């Protein structure tokens, strides 16, 4: 190694020291509880705990509601993200603020607000209950809570994805004979695909882990997070380990798929 390049290497090592130490501390802080928690689990214990009828119900409810919430958030959120990325209109700032609101609101407060809107004694809630579709303490209630809390993730991420698509590509598509919807379908959507999928995955992870708002709107039927809370109250830490590990497993699968999608060639960032 030449003197000059050794000097550069030394310098870059020195310059990286401070951020490395600061970041390293945070990583260690993330890891310690993770390791400590997992060290209390035994395999047999986990499988046994997950196969109890109550746990199976909770897993079923979570795996039923979170995908539905994610689908609802995506179907309604992606078009909104596109409009926010492409159009300017009066009141746009207000719409943007409203989209961010559930992100900054404590979920439990969000759940309380939802109750004041769709609770069983409100006009909306009582009408729906009379029609046989109760909006609280039902799987539909769980979905309402999850969508409220988790939908902003896919909107914000997809919006960034659409924003990164050069508008001239859409203009080229229009000039080649495609209308706005066909252009969205053939150009904008595939080009923002990476960002949208990442947003969908984040929304799913947030929805399946949702507790605060769900607890307010639909304490029953139990989802994995609400059951974890109930078991913690009655039995302490060791009682919740099986479900917590199950939820962790699902979440990890989600993170891995984010990373896999991150490597999918996309145009964003090129």
């Amino acid at each position: 190694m030449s003197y000059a390049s050794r000097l550069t290497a030394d310098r870059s090592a020195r310059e990286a020291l401070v951020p490395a130490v600061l970041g390293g501390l945070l990583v260690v802080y993330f890891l310690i509880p993770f390791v400590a928690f997992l060290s209390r689990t035994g395999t047999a214990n986990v499988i046994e705990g997950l196969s109890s009828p109550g746990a199976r119900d909770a897993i079923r409810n979570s795996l039923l509601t979170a995908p539905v919430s994610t689908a609802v958030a995506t179907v309604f959120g992606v078009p909104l993200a596109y409009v926010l990325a492409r159009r300017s209109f009066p009141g746009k700032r207000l719409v943007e603020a409203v989209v961010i609101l559930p992100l900054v609101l404590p979920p439990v407060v969000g759940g309380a607000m939802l109750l004041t809107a769709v609770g069983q004694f409100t006009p909306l809630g009582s009408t729906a209950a009379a029609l046989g579709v109760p909006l609280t303490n039902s799987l539909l209630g769980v979905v309402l809570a999850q969508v409220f809390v988790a939908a902003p993730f896919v909107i914000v991420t997809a919006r960034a994805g659409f924003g990164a698509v050069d508008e001239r590509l859409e203009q080229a598509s229009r000039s080649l004979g495609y209308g706005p919807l066909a252009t969205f379908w053939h150009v904008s959507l595939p080009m923002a695909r990476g960002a949208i999928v990442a947003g969908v995955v984040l929304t799913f992870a947030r929805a399946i882990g949702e507790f605060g708002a769900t607890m307010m709107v639909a304490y029953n039927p139990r989802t994995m997070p609400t059951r974890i809370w109930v078991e913690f109250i009655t039995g302490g830490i060791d009682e919740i380990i099986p479900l917590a590990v199950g939820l962790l497993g699902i979440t990890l699968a989600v993170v891995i798929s984010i990373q896999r999608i991150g490597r999918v060639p996309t145009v964003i960032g090129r």
Partner: protein
Amino acid sequence: MMLELDSVTHRYDDQPAVEDISFGVEAGELVAVLGPSGCGKTTLVQAIAGHVRPSEGRVRLRGDDVTTDPPEARDVGLVFQEPTLFPHMTVGENVAYGLGPAGVTDPERQVSEYLDLVALDERRSLRPDELSGGQKRRVELARALAPEPDLLLLDEPLSALDRQLREQLRDEISRIHSETGVTTLFVTHDQEEAMALADRLVVMNEGSVAAVGAPRALYERPPNLFVAEFLGRSNTITVDVTGDRAAVELGGTTRQLADESQASPDRAVCHLRPRDLTLESESTAAAVSLSGHVRSVSDLGRRYEVTVELACGDEVVVEQRTEPPAVGDAVRVEASADALSVFTKNGVRLTHETAEPSLQSTAELRVG
């Protein structure tokens, strides 16, 4: 008339981008819209393509008013300055993209035909990011042409390329135009590019049309100072309007102003191209002869550029192929009478001539 713009004006938040633009393009013609960056060329292209709805005025294609039609209904091919190939499609898919809406019966054959036109048929299964910059341009031309549009709009298509590639593609655009005969509007800030390609020029300045005409005619008889200075290199010398404000005098040539009212109160601008000037050590019989001394000389290989400070204080550049004088030498800068154009201070041409540039008929020449 394939394309007709009628008083097109567009404002962004009250800020005018183009104002009162009117010109037409005949079927099969290649017209260049030429102007400095920021003069509203792109807004004009967008208005023709339908991506911008002009605040005022009409856009007519094939004689029909399309001002409010969406882009997909216009049959206008568009190529931008920056590449806009769809990165998630192959070259072939990109070229085939516009064929579906155009209702082409045999898209495969048409893709081959247009990729052949740009000599890239063997690259059809590649992704756009596997192509070089020049190849991308050519695929974009093929994609824009494949649906056989009535009008091809090229918005600074060569500006992002390096010089050699630019000249190559310029020739290619010229060849494609003559082979397909497609009516083409070519937008550029590069006057050399515009003059080399176009049947007619539309020169734009600050959102308005400064001149429309054949490239050679505009170069040789610029209707105003902006066109004179924008098309080719220029020297300007500000002179007093003499006598009863009806004539200017430069280096022995007196120009009678045809219309007194055109002259701004006391000053006028004389315009001479560097290549029309010669350097002499002694005064000759040239119509315009000015004294000065050499300030600097640059050697550009195939010619020298000699900067001369005139006795009046203005500097002029003289192009010359022979051995230049030394810095500091006293010289005469000379030109023939027809090399001289005179404009008002505001850049309006002082038309002292009749239609033919036979200067002697109306200008009083005095050899000095």
